[in-house]
């Protein structure tokens, strides 16, 4: 059994071999799992906001979908992943409450999902599966070796996408 590496909010981690990456309690944030199926190198990013260019204070790159995914991909390649072979799966982007207090909060989950997909398509990384939206939190575990993306939610059966 490998190690399960925890990814916090506004963070990303990569791993290989038997190891897995996990993030607990994804709400409106989005978890983006990327791997190279041939080498089994992969990683998981936990982003909070869709676009770093919309915000002045944007030094924290893992916080945003655009810069977070970019950095995650770079690190996967650095660890031996092949840029052209990468594939992705995403989860999260829920609407936890039916309102947000500011314009930036309106449908932020949905916008996080959209921004993540857009970045992936810009980078020409195919999106194989997703479990997004709805109104509940998700805990996810990603196994880059076989590509399993395990999703757990409160009061629901575990699923693998």
């Amino acid at each position, binding site marked *: 059994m490998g190690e399960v590496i925890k990814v916090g*909010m506004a963070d990303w981690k990569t791993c290989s071999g038997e190891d897995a990456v996990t993030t607990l*309690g*994804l709400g*409106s944030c989005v978890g983006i799992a990327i791997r190279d199926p041939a080498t089994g190198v992969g990683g998981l990013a936990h982003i*909070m906001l869709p676009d770093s260019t919309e915000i002045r*204070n944007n030094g924290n790159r893992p916080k945003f979908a655009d810069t977070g995914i970019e950095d995650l991909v770079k690190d996967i390649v650095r660890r031996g992943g092949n840029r052209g072979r990468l594939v992705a799966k995403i989860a999260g982007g829920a609407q*936890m409450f039916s309102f947000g207090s500011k314009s930036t909060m309106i449908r932020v989950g949905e916008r996080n999902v959209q921004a993540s997909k857009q970045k992936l398509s810009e980078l020409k990384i195919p999106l194989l599966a997703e479990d997004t939206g709805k109104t*509940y*939190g998700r805990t996810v575990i990603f196994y880059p070796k076989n590509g399993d993306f395990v999703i757990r939610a*409160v009061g629901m059966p575990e699923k693998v996408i």
Partner: protein
Amino acid sequence: MKDLNMEQLTDQYFDVLKELGNIGAGNATTALAQMIDCKVDMHVPQVKLLEFKELGDMVGGEDKLMVSIFLQVEGDIDGSIMFMLSKTAAAHLVNKLMCGMLGIDEEKADEYEFGEMECSAIKEVGNIITGAYLNALSGLTNMKIFPSIPQLGIDMAGALLSVPAIEFGVFGDKILLIQTQFSDDVVLDGFFILIPDMESYERILGSLGVM
């Protein structure tokens, strides 16, 4: 003060927030004691400025089941406020409030599904507690603050916290958490997150004479 961010908060501002937390928690404790008709003690609240990744651990783990009450405020301050407590603590409060009529087994609170009655009771508790805080803030700053109808969320701590974290995330990399412990026969940990928008922060600080 266009470039105010959370990292630049002064000790003085922290003290103000702590005091605010104290007064708010004091008000809330009194209200709570009247509501459940028993003596409730309160500990000095802790005010912490945390990184997003530290948040989960602070409340007992990102996947811990929590109950949260989230409401918007408007008036002289725009923003939102969240009060959070563990599902076990919520079950305890509901039992007290309903004089044990629903007989929730607190040991198994995590598996217990709150019905309409329980949710309504929790919302009421949340309303009273957040109301007490907002009253303290309003009284201290002499500003008008109007809360919206509360919304209830029962889910993993991380998922619930993502909502205020994202709001804070727009202008900083840290989040301000006020932790309050209430106790009657058991100790209940309550977590408070106030999320005023940037202009409101300046207004709060200004009216308190901090800036």
